[in-house]
Structures are given as structure tokens and as C-alpha cells.
């Protein structure tokens, strides 16, 4: 069989996102990653909920289900139990995954099914035409909040960590290389890989992540996490983060007297560091992208299968006739 190319993972369906939508880039990169990984189209299933982002399955030439709002994690869990060999990807949005679907999300994470879940965070409800979402910043004026929203936003990565996720990462629609790397890493993690993707909705929330994607500001406002490496960032790699006790501190490498060797070394195995990174939100600290946390923990379907195997070994393969005739029986006639 010839190796598949990115375009072989596309369907014949017209892609119906707004021109300029960040979803296009994610679609393209995912197709590319599939090609790079050489995935068998018949072994992949993409399950989504409802939202602009959730249109995704229609555009991927694999198995797929565009399900109902917020329930993709539950459906994917069932599918994965039925057929643990499948390669299951969940596509969700900040509304789909964190508003109506928040509960299924946290239960998916704690159970640790071996699936990837990509949360397209555009900080808005796109499909329903522009209401604020659980990730929208306070005071956001939208159709449903003409006087500004008053809801304190959810921090998706902090929530995922709080729910004992085993793989937590963040990436961006407008950084194709980073996106691809992160998706590949997510795929190679055995367990639930939670990936938040900052995605621009150019119609209802244009520029929400510009600071982190614009060439001019990007390197000063994001920090790309690399396992075992110090937290250095900035256009000239002249800034870093060190730990002052339990507090992250931004330091200028040239002027502050601190050098790279004083910096915090990224360790995706450290839950407390991951916690701190997930809280890099205010003011001066750069927004971390990359893999914040990774942990090995048995995944649900493996435990399920081994429990079944164990029971079968212990009790013998079930015999229906015996089962029906079990317990106290008696004969008539």
C-alpha cells in the first residue's frame, strides 16, 4: 500500500467554516499529522459534539461521528470500550467541552481512556453566532452580554489537572509546526491526552490570541515548554522564569543577575510545576505552550479488558446453557 498523503485524509465534503477561521489550519495540520504517523483511515474514529469545531469529522476521511452537544467524551468512551484497538480522537469546543459537556470531560480525564481530546478554544460560541463562553474573559461584550459578562472564566488546563488528567498540553492554530508536534505527542501518550488549541474565530472573537500568535509579540508573550530545558523565552531569549519558593518569577537574563542556570527546568512529570504553569495567566508571565504535564497511568479500557480476561480465567468462559440453568432448578413432567 502506498503511503497516504495529507489530502488522502480529506473527504469530498465542502468545508463550511468561515473564510479565515482558525479551524482550517487545525484541519490541515491534523491531516498532515495523520499522514506523518501513517494512520490507517479505517482504524481512526473522530467523535465530536456540536459547534463549528465539531463539524470536523465530516472533513476527515476516517470513521466519524458528529454527535450531540457536549456528549462526545461519553460516546468515545463507549466506542473505546467496544473496540480498544481503535484510534479515537475527540473534537470539542470551549462551549461543547466546558459548558454543557464539562462533566463528561472530567470523567473522561479521570478514567483515562486512551484517546486524544482536542479542545478548540476560541473563547466564544461560534456556531450559535457569538455568545460568551466559559473561557471568555470577564466583562466581555457579546450578544448575550451587552453590558459585559460577569462570569469568572474556566481555566481549561487547571481544570484538567484538577481532574487528574494524565496529559495536558496547549498549542495554537497559527503555529503549524507546534500544532503538529503537540498532536503527535498527544497521539503517542497512552491515556487521555487533553490538548487545548487556541483557535481564532475571526467572525465573533477576532484576535483573541493575537498576542500569542502575532510574529511581533509571540516570542515575548509565550513560552514553549521543552522537557528538561530551562524556561527561557523572549525575542532574544533574554527572559526566563525562576522559582522563588513556590512563586514563579520573571527575570531578565541580562540585567537581573540571574542566568539560565538559575531558571526553572521544565519537568512535565511534576504535577506542582504543571499546576503553576497552568496558572500563568496574569500580567507579566508568558503563556506556556507545549506539554505541561504527562503521567503514566493505566487506561480504562486496558483495565476493563484485563478484568474480563481475569474473570474468564477464574470462572471459565461463560456457558449460556449453564447460566440459564443455574441456581435451584426442578423438573416438571
Amino acid at each position, binding site marked *: 500500500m502506498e503511503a497516504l498523503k495529507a489530502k488522502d485524509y480529506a*473527504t469530498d*465534503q465542502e468545508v463550511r467554516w468561515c473564510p479565515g477561521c482558525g479551524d482550517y489550519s487545525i484541519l490541515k495540520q491534523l491531516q498532515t499529522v495523520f499522514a506523518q504517523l501513517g494512520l490507517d*483511515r*479505517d*482504524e*481512526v*474514529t473522530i*467523535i465530536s459534539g*456540536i459547534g463549528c469545531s465539531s463539524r470536523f*469529522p*465530516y472533513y*476527515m*476521511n*476516517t*470513521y*466519524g*461521528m*458528529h*454527535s*450531540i452537544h457536549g*456528549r462526545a467524551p*461519553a*460516546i*468515545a*468512551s*463507549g*466506542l*473505546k*470500550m*467496544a*473496540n480498544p*484497538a*481503535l484510534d479515537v480522537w475527540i473534537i470539542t469546543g470551549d462551549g461543547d467541552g466546558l459548558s454543557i459537556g464539562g*462533566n*463528561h470531560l472530567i*470523567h473522561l480525564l479521570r478514567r483515562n481512556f486512551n484517546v486524544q481530546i482536542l479542545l478548540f478554544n476560541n473563547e466564544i460560541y461560534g456556531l450559535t453566532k457569538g455568545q460568551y463562553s466559559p473561557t471568555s474573559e470577564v466583562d466581555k461584550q457579546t450578544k448575550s452580554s451587552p453590558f459585559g459578562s460577569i462570569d469568572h472564566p474556566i481555566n481549561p488546563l487547571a481544570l484538567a489537572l484538577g481532574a487528574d488528567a494524565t496529559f495536558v498540553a496547549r498549542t495554537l492554530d497559527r503555529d503549524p509546526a507546534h500544532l503538529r508536534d503537540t498532536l503527535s505527542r498527544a497521539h503517542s501518550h497512552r491515556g487521555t491526552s487533553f490538548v487545548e488549541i487556541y483557535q481564532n474565530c475571526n467572525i465573533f472573537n477576532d484576535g483573541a490570541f493575537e498576542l500569542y500568535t502575532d510574529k511581533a509579540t509571540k516570542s515575548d508573550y509565550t513560552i514553549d515548554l521543552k522537557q528538561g530545558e530551562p524556561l527561557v523565552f523572549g525575542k532574544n531569549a533574554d527572559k526566563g522564569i525562576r522559582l522563588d519558593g513556590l512563586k514563579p518569577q520573571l527575570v531578565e537574563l541580562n540585567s537581573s543577575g540571574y542566568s539560565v542556570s538559575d531558571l526553572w527546568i521544565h519537568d512535565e512529570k511534576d504535577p506542582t510545576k504543571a499546576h503553576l504553569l497552568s496558572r500563568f495567566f496574569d500580567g507579566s508571565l508568558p503563556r506556556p505552550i507545549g506539554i505541561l504535564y504527562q503521567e503514566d497511568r493505566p487506561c480504562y479500557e486496558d483495565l*476493563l479488558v484485563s*478484568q*474480563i480476561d*481475569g*474473570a*474468564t480465567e*477464574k*470462572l*471459565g*468462559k*461463560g456457558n*449460556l*446453557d449453564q*447460566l*440459564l*440453568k*443455574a*441456581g*435451584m*432448578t*426442578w*423438573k*416438571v*413432567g
Partner: protein
Amino acid sequence: MTKETKKQETSEITIKFAGDSGDGMQLTGSLFTNNAALFGNDLATFPDFPAEIRAPLGTLSGVSGFQLHFGSREIFTPGDRYDVLVAMNAAALKVNLGKLKKGGTLIVNTEGFDSKNLKIAHYDRPVPEEDDELKSSYELIPIQVTKLTRTALEGVDLSNKEKDRCKNMFVLGFLYWRFNRDPTTTINSLKKKFASKPVLLEANLAVLQAGFNYGDTTETFTVTYDIPPAQMPEGLYRNIMGNEALVLGLIAASERSHLPLFYGSYPITPASDILHLLSRHKNFGVKTFQAEDEIAGIGSAIGAAYGGHLAVTGTSGPGMALKGEALGLALMLELPLVIINVQRGGPSTGLPTKTEQADLLQAMYGRNGESPVAVIAASSPGDCFDTAYEACRIAVEHMTPVIMLSDGYIANGAEPWKVPEVEQLSPIQSVTPESPEEGISFQPYSRNENLTRAWATPGMKGFAHRVGGLEKEALTGNVSYDPANHEYMVKIRQAKVDRIAQFLPKASINKGAAQGDILLLGWGSTLGVLDSTTTELIDKGLAISHLHLRYLNPFPEGLPELLANFKTIIVPEINNGQLSKIIKERFLVPVIPFNKIQGLPINKTELKDFIYALLESEENGSIKS
């Protein structure tokens, strides 16, 4: 003491065992039941647990009961009223006395009537021995059960608390004497149960014997009763509860369809036992998933169905309400899915531990849009096996969600069940897709002659396709907003469900002639009472018949013709008239509802009274529907 005991033959007896949760009434009832079953009686049982919470000792809400109806003739229900009531304390008597037949036997544990008991139970009559009214209305047998039990166990190396736990064996022994039962099967059961605890075994056997002897040696009774074996079709039997039979039905369907069974569910009374029982059968490859809520329960089942499993989700009314949206998805996806609703008293949280049939309209219409699904209902504990099997068959062979209705009454009730032979269970055939021709892509929504699409599951080579909840284009399954396509798809989804009728047995009368004056038309757990009422009234000379519906959507063919054969159609239901509504709408025939909405099964007496009253008013020309 002189003693002269007469034996008397009787065709049926209803015994109610009632006591505190800790008094072991469930075990006592079960042991008697097994004994009767092995002896060859037909029977039906119904446990009557306290509502939800383990209530404090001696309270009314803490009363636990077990009702057993057994006989030498066909037994349809656990019985309306009791011939014998065993009351271990004041609360148990207060709760149950109303149903003891006048002249019936009342066995009371006098030690359950001390002042503390009386107070907690708000018992405001005199204690039984001093209650003249009671004594004149019933055959009262007061027994100091605790004292006699302890006496029987004198010298045994057990604490008083442990000894007292054998009390129920005393009562059981006493009853065995009264009904001339051979206790051997019970002795065997106890030996098994206490195999590893010889002291306890010894104690239980001793007390059982003491109870038996107590009857034999006191002059309490002048009569004992014989209930000869019943005539039952040949075969191997076991006593089975509804939820147990249901679980066996699902596992059997899994085996006979060669599809692994998946059960995704969130616990809820009275459906939880399905989860409990299935989870023990992992060695049948059964996968059970305790989901975070009912939506995840059905969601996981949809995922498993997409993945090629025989997927089932189960719940009760409130949980069913939560599954409506996802059920709509399943019917849009046209995947096989069985949704079990073990109904309980509603609306809302309602009466969780009581029975009701009030979720039929919800099953029919409880979703947005035009959303037909198949609906079938079990009619007795044993019938839960067949109905569950049928639900799976229809789901898989017609690629549709099927709602199976059961209820608390049959889920927890039990009856002798003729064990089927595996080979006699008709195999279940799923619809597999044909390999698409080269260059032509797979059409997930193309249909066979039954309007059923094929089941292509992820992992199958060459069938990659997308499904979803938006309206789909006929054949391709692509999203389609085309107006004519939508109308076509709505109609075809309806037609597909309607067409199932062609594969069902034709409607037929359960009992009585195919035409006559009165038809009792029922569904679900009222089977027993409708059947026995009909039998009795036919004996009395009425031109009455009984027709019981397992298939509620679609209805079986031939139903309107049968309905037309009767002058009056009475629809008895444990709800406010839901099947009545559907029958009127579907066939434009008048029906007379008989509705009981008390969280309890219908009993024969009230139904008979209703029918006689109706006949009387008919004679007076005032019958109305």
C-alpha cells in the same frame, strides 16, 4: 396435651411475611418459595422493601415484607389479599393487617409488641392477645418467638444477639408444619449457606425443627393444609425475578447474535440490579460501565453500538427523561440500541420504590421532532427474558433503538420460569454491509428490503464513513438541508419502525374467545391479574377475553380486527390511562379505562368489582366511554 389435627386440601394460599428490616423476612420468604417451587407448586412472589433508606428499628417505614402466592393451579399474581399474615412486630401488623382476609390466619410475635414497639409504630390498638376485635376477626396465633428460639438454643455457643437472628427459622418451621411441607430442600439450602459456619448451621436447623415441633406439639392448630403440586408444562424450572430474567435475556441475545454485550448505565431504583447482575458475568465478555449519569450511560451505549456491540442502557423514569436527546441521536444514526426503563411511581422522583406504568407515553413521544422508536413491554418476571431477547433482536435486525418497558413490580417479583434450551432461541442476524464496488464509496444509508441500513463499524476495512445528528441525505448519509429529502427521511424512519410489524407474531387473544362482550386489553405487568380475572369471569359465564400487548410500537398486525370483535374494550392500567389514549388515537374506538395510580399492582377484586359495576350500568343503559 391431646391433639387432633385435620388435614385439609386447598388450591392456593397467599402468605405475607412482615417484620423489621433485620428480621430476615426476605430470606424466610425465599426459602419457603424455593421449597414450594421444588415441590411443584406454581407461585408468584413480591418483595416489599422499605422505601429507600434503612429506617430505624420498629418504625412503620422500616417494615420489610415478602409476599408469596402458591398453589396447585396456575398462579398469575402474588395475590391480592393474604390468607396468612406473619407479623414480627407492631409496625408490621399495622402496615399489613388491612390486607389479611377476614378469617385469615394471623401469626404474631408477641415480643414485637412491647411498649417501645407500640410507641414507635404509633400502634393504638390493644396488644393482639388483648384485642378482642382482632381475635374475633382472625385466627390469631400469638407466639413468643424470641423466647422459644432462645430456649431451643440453650447451651449452644452463641450470643443472645446471634441466637435471636435465628428467630425467622422458628416461624418458617412452624409454617412448614402448618402447610405439611417437607423441610428437606430448606435444610439443604441452609447447609450450603452455612457450610463454613457449623455452629450457625446447627442453630438454624435446631430452631427450624423447634418451630415445626411447636406446631406439632401445641394445640395451636386444629387444621393443617395440603397444597398439592400444580399442573405445569413439562420442562426444567427455576424461580426467577424480573431483573434476573432480563439479564439472562440480554446475555442470551448476545450469544445468539455473536455480538459482545455492552451495558452503560447509571444506578437508579429499580433498575440498578440489572447493572449489578450483569457485572458478575464478565466471563461472558459482558462489558458493564457505571457511567457518571444517564446521559453518559446512553452516550457510551451509542458509542459501543457504533463500535459493533450489542449495546444496552437501562434506567427508570427520571433517568429516561434525561436520555431523550441522545435517544434522538441514536434514531438518527439508525444504530441498534436497547433502552430499558424499569418504571417506578412518578412524576419526578415520585415514589421510587413503588410500581407504575406511567412512562408509556414518554417512551412513545419523549423526544424532539418526529422520532419513532420501537417500544415493547415485559409482562411478568419470566417474560422479562423473552422481552429483553426480543428487544435485542428487533434492535439488531432493524437497526433501531428499542425501548423495553418493565416495572418495579415484575423487576422484583418472582415466579417459576421454564428454562429455555439455547438452541431454541432464534438466532439474531445483524445486517452487514456489502463491500462497496471499486471506486464507489460506501453508502451508509442505503437500505435493504426492510428499510434497514447496514451496520459498518469502525475498524472495518473500506467502510469509513461519517454519521451525525443533522438530517442526512438518503443513501450517502451526508448532511442535507434539502426539503424533500427531509420529508423523505422522516417518513422512511417511520416506515422502518412500522415495518417491524411484519416480523412480529400477529395479535392474538391470551384467554377467552376471539370475540365477545368484553375485552380486557392490557400491557406490561398487569398480565397476571388480567388473565386470572378473565379466567374467573369466564367461569362465571361472562363473554370476556383478555388480550395482552407485548409490542406497543409498532402494534402487531390484526389488532384492529380483534378490537372490533368486542362490544366493550376495557383497558386496565397502573397509570392515568396511557394505553387508552394510544388505542383511541390509533383505532378511533371507544375504550373504558380502568386506572389505578397507587404505586401498587391492580388486584383481581377491584377489577372484578369494576367490571360488574360496569355491566350493571350497562344494563341500566348508562355505559359511557
